[in-house]
């Protein structure tokens, strides 16, 4: 039997608002433990939540970016469960009426575009963090648990896809594209490694051609796109082999172990938790009027997919355009270079090639370099005019990135400008011919390999700054 995977992704995005979701405490993860806390986010007796309007604005922005409908009136609910890093032992979340619903995101894998429907995006608050202290650092052998409530109450947006994803590669593409969009909105730093964006996958399989879903397993703890793809792929194969050997899939949560490359059972969801959702009586419904929604829509930046298309139109190839659109710093440089007059294809190649390589090598963000769009334009122009060899151009770029100055200035200072002025080169060629009459006669006589000898001499005379192609042409013109 052939099996087909059915995958849905749940994404948690921490919003980078100045203050928390329901109180005035700062959102700041670098702070000393338990310093950004107050009666509200510590769940002290008598404290009450007041919603952060910015967070509502930002989730609306996220919803609009994913083509969602925005609820005019949505409702907060209490999700009840006991956990020591959850101060109130209920999480303020949303249940039947989320802020955003019924959107989609198109993703492309191997040249095929698929529309992944988004069921909803709802507003909730994050929990604190537990630090298990013990021999192994694992929960089971921990002797003490330390609690840090700086994260408690940070605004969290949960984006839930429909089970429209059909492969591990598609799951990865969805997650990557979603992250790119969220990052472009400027509402979260969206860093997987820091947990400011977190992906969980619901995976089941069914015989190809059948409708009903199989039993789903929730896979957690993937901290890179690669591990998301590996974990989903592993889980698909695990479920296949269980079913092939006559076993059954249990509804459960499984933990991805990056080192071992396997998923482990975390907890059974049989007799699944009953969160006893009920409308949060401390909060009024969230109202997003048409006017407010439209005002928020007007602030939406260009979405990455649209930007890629625009960059292709400016001359970048598809891969470079995607890379440029995925990095704010590169995108800014590309646009200013093109605006300054650089050809799009050349600017794209420099930025996605040498500039990106420099950034990796130096572990520095391109935005931290001295490079400007005008520099990229000048560099491209010098190469086009043969004033720089391609090797010299790379060297010049390095000096520019390091902050030594603009390409013209730097190339002159380091004596890298090549002589392509034909008058000066002709003078040099004639001088060399005059000094080596015998060899020139042999060249004219048909000993063609001697042309290299003459080019070499001209290069020596010009101190290596001559353009060898131009020199060759002049020598040939003298042979007649």
């Amino acid at each position, binding site marked *: 039997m052939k099996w087909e995977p059915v995958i849905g992704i749940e994404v948690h995005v921490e919003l980078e608002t100045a203050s928390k979701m329901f109180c005035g405490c700062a959102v700041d993860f670098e702070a000393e433990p338990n310093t950004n806390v107050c009666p509200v986010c510590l769940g002290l007796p008598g404290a009450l939540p007041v919603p952060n309007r910015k967070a509502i604005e930002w989730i609306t922005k996220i919803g609009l970016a994913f083509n969602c409908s925005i609820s005019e009136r949505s409702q907060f609910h209490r999700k009840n469960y006991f956990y*020591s890093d959850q101060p109130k032992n209920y999480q303020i979340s949303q249940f039947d009426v989320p802020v955003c619903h019924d959107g989609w995101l198109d993703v492309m894998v191997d040249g095929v575009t698929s529309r992944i429907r988004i069921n909803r995006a709802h507003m909730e608050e994050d929990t604190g963090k537990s630090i298990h202290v013990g021999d192994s650092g694992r929960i089971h052998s921990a002797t003490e648990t330390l609690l840090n409530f700086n994260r408690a109450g940070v605004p969290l947006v949960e984006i839930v896809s429909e089970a429209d994803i059909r492969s591990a590669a598609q799951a990865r593409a969805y997650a990557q594209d979603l992250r790119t969009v969220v990052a472009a909105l400027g509402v979260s730093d969206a860093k997987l490694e820091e947990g400011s964006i977190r992906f969980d996958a619901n995976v089941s399989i069914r015989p190809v051609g059948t409708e009903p879903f199989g039993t789903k397993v929730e896979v957690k703890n993937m901290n890179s796109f690669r591990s998301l793809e590996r974990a989903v792929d592993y889980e698909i194969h695990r479920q296949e082999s269980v079913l092939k050997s006559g076993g059954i899939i249990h509804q459960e949560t499984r933990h991805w172990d990056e080192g071992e490359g396997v998923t482990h059972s975390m907890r059974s969801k049989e007799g699944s938790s009953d969160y006893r959702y009920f409308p949060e009586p401390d909060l009024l419904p969230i109202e997003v009027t048409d006017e407010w929604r439209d005002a928020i829509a007007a602030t939406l930046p260009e979405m990455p997919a649209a930007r890629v298309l625009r960059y292709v139109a400016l001359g970048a190839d598809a891969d470079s355009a995607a890379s440029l659109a995925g990095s704010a710093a590169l995108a800014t440089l590309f646009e200013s270079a093109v605006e300054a007059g650089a050809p799009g294809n050349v600017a794209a190649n420099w930025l996605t090639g040498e500039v990106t390589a420099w950034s990796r090598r130096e572990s520095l963000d391109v935005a931290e370099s001295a490079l400007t769009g005008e520099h990229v334009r000048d560099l491209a122009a010098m190469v086009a005019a043969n004033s720089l060899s391609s090797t010299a151009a790379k060297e010049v770029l390095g000096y520019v990135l390091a902050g030594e100055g603009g390409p013209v200035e730097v190339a002159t200072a380091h004596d890298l400008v090549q002589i392509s002025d034909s008058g000066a080169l002709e003078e040099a060629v004639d001088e060399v011919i005059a000094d080596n009459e015998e060899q020139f006669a042999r060249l004219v006589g048909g000993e063609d390999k001697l042309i290299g000898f003459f080019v070499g001499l001209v290069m020596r005379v010009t101190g290596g700054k001559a353009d060898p192609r131009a020199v060759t042409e002049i020598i040939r013109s003298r042979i007649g």
Partner: protein
Amino acid sequence: MTELSQLTLVEAAAALRAGDCTSVALTESVLDRASLTEASVHAYLTIDRLGALAAAEASDRRIADEKPIGLLDGLPIALKDNMMTKGIETTASSKILSGYIPPYDGTVVRRLREAGAVFVGKTNLDEFAMGSSTENSAYGPTRNPWNLDTVPGGSSGGSAAAVAAGSALAALGSDTGGSIRQPAALCGLVGTKPTYGLVSRYGLIAFASSLDQIGPLTRSVQDAAILYEAIAGHDPHDATSFPGPAPSGTERLGAGVEGLRVGVVNELSADGIDDEVVAAFRATVDRLEKAGAEIVELSLPSTATALSAYYLIAPAECSANLARFDGVRYGLRVAGSTVDEMMSLTRAEGFGSEVIRRILLGTYALSAGYYDAFYGQAQRVRTLIIQEFARAYEQVDVLVSPTAPAPAFELGAKTQDPLSMYMQDICTIPSNLSGHPAMSVPVGLSASGLPIGFQVMAPALGETVMFQVASAIEALSDDIGRPVLEVVAS
């Protein structure tokens, strides 16, 4: 001159202005009174003698400089122990919060502090405000100063007993199903529950968030109106706080009832109500009619289901509100071998039986498969009640009923029978479900000398007419005086 501890707020403020007494003298008089009565009444869990005297001295300096902050400046007031008071132990009468010192003042406490009020201490209550007799306190019951064998009502029984006994001039309570009005009735006081949202709940330990409301327990309607005005008003810390200005409490005091339409709610005024209470109620209605009010007998059938709806909604909300008491961050902690076990043991040890009963009821009512039949249905009933009251207020200005079904009962009489205890709130609960304001005014004494209360209910934001009618009733009723309390110096 009357004993200082027996003055109304208005009388005491006048005496302060006239230089007939000082805030320190007023404060000492209620503290002295407490030292005589507390051994038998037990109205307080904490008396902040030093803090109160310091505040009184500061107030006296302002008054001497002729710069009093306002009418409440220098007046000794008691606070129910479910309101956050910075630096002063606050337990809600629960063992689980034993020793808990709040790091902040609730909004209402802050407002009164800023108005110059002197806080005598924190008063006893049924644990987490769950009860109608103040017997469900982990720190022992409070007794009714009118008869020490009887209860003061609850859950704000400590606040009511303090004001009745003279150990505070006035007090704040909280009312979720009648917890201000019923103890006011049983202790011969004026007890007021304002419109939901007019008084901030920030800093009030939540019992049932959609029902809880803070309000005053006072010796006169005028005191009630003044204290209400001092605590009402928008608070940005409470998202359910009414955004507009609070209606006036004092504007129509003494304006009579000529031409007002007063609705008698049949369902709340006969069945299950003690004969003496019905008689006092009817006598008061007659007086209102003689004073020029138009009496309209009307029926609100949905009120028959109010108690059932309340005992699903309030426990459901409390099951979540009380989840935070887990031993992790503050309060009692009973050690366990795992975090889950620690939480379970802490809660089993820290909560009393009535609290546990309500948490279990609420957890059940919210459970998957039961939600619609219980919590969902209760919310539908609540909507019906709101609609029915709204229609009634198209015909009348205020509604009236007895406050409590009977005068104070003896300690222990209902502790084994939760349902008969729950019936204490049969007349008061509908206004909590509808969110409308309601208050109790004393209208007489029973044959055995126990106070009887009369309830005035008004539409949302109808405080002005409610206080107007209450002040008329107060004027038309015989003064029941103050309880004669046998006291022994402790």
